[in-house]
């Protein structure tokens, strides 16, 4: 009956690309402290942080170097100790180029004094907890990097009944969350309980794909409610996860809180717990370095701002001539043009590939595979034609704004059309025109 149940409740669409999770059973290794870090002031959805340091300032690990600017914004902290050598525009994994703070390491591990264990964090009030999370610069670590404190402060007219902890990691090749769940389950649970307390949610449910049953077992053992979900991409997308677990549909243009849910990534739970219990700001994260272009793929704990080239060296260097560096998973990741881009808070993995996709697109033959697999029920093949013809009104009518850019359509496109690309462009144009 479980199968039937998951069929009934699961979301429609989705694809199942080869998983290729080669780093599945490798533990988390800690990367050495880089000589230089490039910390962008914009690592999250929302307004970039406002720089607090100047050239030649001396910073320690955890020193706040950027203050949050407005509500949907978080501060940025130094991830190594050393000297600020400049605030310049540097390659950025998402934005292309953006203002970064360059810190040259002094080789030591000097932590900011305020970073001490906070043994009685459990006594803190809701507001204090949210504030602490905000001050630590915690954002969603699943990839979107949405400031966590915003998610934790739903308006009073939207009561939250369920907190879903997202341990799906549906992207192929990535295993960072999986390893984190195996190694830091206790802290994740504590973080999740803390979120539950903040949100006053009655239910706490873990959502884990059935290719990570070992992780699911750990949480089950702790007496938590765990839903094992079919391995299918994008199972870990918020709206699809809510649909799969609770059979609730987030309305168009709405947020999970509209259906009484909050979804948090396991990494976020972990980081938030660290932030509250140890006052540790978000200065490092676990990520997967993998792909056929890297000698020894690993799950690594990396300082935020580490340039990618340092990680590549840590992982044994290239196997051959690399063609692509992708930040994130193969489905939604962003290809980088330079080795100098730093790891940021939202970077869940780095894929080094020795092959690039032949990007020649054929004519759309209306095979409708994109319609079949779109988890949002869109018709990418129609929308892309509207976008091509600059008919953005029609594109909007067909729901281009609902696109979650999961990439299923382009993955399954028989004509190799970069549908996501067209849809993203359409989305931007619709927004621009509606302004």
């Amino acid at each position, binding site marked *: 009956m479980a199968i039937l149940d998951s069929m009934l409740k699961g979301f429609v669409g989705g694809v199942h*690309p*080869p998983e290729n999770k080669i780093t599945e059973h490798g533990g988390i290794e800690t990367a050495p402290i880089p000589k230089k870090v490039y910390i962008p002031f914009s690592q999250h959805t929302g307004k970039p942080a406002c720089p607090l340091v100047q050239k030649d300032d001396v910073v320690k690990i955890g020193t706040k170097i950027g203050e949050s600017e407005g509500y949907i914004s978080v501060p940025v902290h130094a991830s190594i100790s050393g000297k600020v050598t400049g605030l310049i525009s540097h390659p950025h994994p998402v934005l292309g180029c953006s203002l970064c703070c360059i810190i040259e390491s002094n080789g030591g591990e000097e932590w900011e004094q305020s970073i001490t264990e906070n043994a009685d964090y459990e006594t803190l009030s809701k507001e204090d907890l949210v504030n602490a999370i905000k001050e630590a610069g915690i954002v969603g670590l699943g990839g979107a990097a949405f400031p966590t404190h915003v998610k934790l402060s739903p308006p009073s007219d939207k009561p939250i009944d369920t907190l879903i902890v997202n341990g799906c990691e549906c992207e*192929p090749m990535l295993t960072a969350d999986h390893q984190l769940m195996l190694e830091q389950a206790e802290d994740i649970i504590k973080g999740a309980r803390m979120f539950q307390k903040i949100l006053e949610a009655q239910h706490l449910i873990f959502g884990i794909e059935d290719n990570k049953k070992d992780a699911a077992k750990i949480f089950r053992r702790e007496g938590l409610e765990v839903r094992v979900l079919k391995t299918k991409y994008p199972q870990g997308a918020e*709206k699809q996860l809510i*649909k799969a677990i609770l*059979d*609730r*549909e*987030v*309305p*168009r243009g*709405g947020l999970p809180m509209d*259906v009484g849910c909050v979804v948090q990534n396991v990494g976020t739970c972990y980081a938030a717990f660290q932030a509250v219990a140890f006052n540790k700001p978000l200065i490092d994260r676990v990520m997967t370095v993998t792909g056929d272009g890297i000698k020894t793929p690993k799950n690594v704990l990396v300082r935020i701002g580490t340039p990618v080239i340092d990680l590549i060296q840590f992982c044994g260097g290239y196997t051959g001539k*690399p063609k*692509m*560096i*992708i930040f*994130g998973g*193969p*489905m*939604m*990741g*962003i*290809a980088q*043009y*330079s*080795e100098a881009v730093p790891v940021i808070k939202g970077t869940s993995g780095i*894929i080094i590939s020795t092959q*690039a*996709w032949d*990007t020649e697109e*054929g*004519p759309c*033959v*209306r*095979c*409708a595979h994109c*319609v*079949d697999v*779109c988890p*949002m*029920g*869109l*018709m990418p*093949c*129609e929308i892309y034609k509207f976008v091509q013809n600059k008919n953005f009104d029609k594109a909007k009518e*067909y729901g281009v704004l*609902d696109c979650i*850019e999961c*990439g*299923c359509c*382009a*993955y*399954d*496109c*028989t*004509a190799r059309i*970069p549908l*996501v690309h067209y849809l*993203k462009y359409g989305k931007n144009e619709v927004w621009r025109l509606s302004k």
Partner: protein
Amino acid sequence: MNELFVVSASPHVRGKMNIDLAMRLVIIALVPALSYSVFLFGIRVLIITAISIGASVACEALMQKMLGKKITVTDGSAVLTGLLLAFNLPPAVPLWLPAIGSAFAIIFAKQLFGGLGYNFINPALAGRAFLMASWPLFMTKAWLAPANGTLSGIDGITSATPLSLLKNAANYGDPSIIVRQLNDFDTIKNIFFGNIGGCIGETSALLLLIGGLFLIIIRVVDYRIVVGYLVSVAVLVFVLPTKGTLMFHLFSGGLFLGAFFMATDWVTSPVTHKGRWIFGAGCGILTIIIRIWGGYPEGVSYSILLMNVFTPLIDSLTKERVFGELSKKKGVKK
């Protein structure tokens, strides 16, 4: 290492299926039926098919060159068009007929509308309709009686197809006896396994079924159109006063060929799920209407052509339900 890396839009992995592969798979799925047809009607079938495919590929290349486009005959779509056209021809047609049909299909139904992906009707069926209108005599009388394995069916005893027997039973003797014979289990068995006269591709329902199921399993063919088509035919045969039985109507003629390989043509069928059901059902309804009340014994090709024309309309009327869109059934649960 300072050179720049390749930047391309996500996703960075792609599924295995692409146009070229899909076309090849469809062709492979059609090969058993073709081989059996060669076995039944002789080597002539092979010649007709080769001419049809050759003309189709040549015209595609020629048109693309004339229109200054990239020549893409290797994608297999022209081969498939030629093959499907040959499947729709009686085995004893004169040899120039498939060439002209292919030329019409490729030049007028496909390339003049913009080539692959832009044709609004199935080119192979357009070619067949053109031949049917132009040389009805060749298209309706050049049947051969099956001559298993002799490979030289050329002297060809003409024999009527089961559907034309049913339609014009009175021409061949006592109608009631003929109808009874046609609905006999042995006849149905012959029809299902393909020991009958008919178009090159429509003889063996079994082999077409196997090929079609293979395509459905590998997701080249959408089951909705096929199921919609076959079920609507079955229901109508059940409800309406027809001379043939359910099995007879399902297995005879080009129904399986049409349902599995022609109606499901990607370019000319709707993209929405609901749309595909409607499309399939529409094809089924029209097929039966033509078979019972129409002038031709077989209605598959015209029904599909007619529904092809409705495809854009169906698509625009049956938009997919966007995730999270409010509907009467599934409101937002709180």
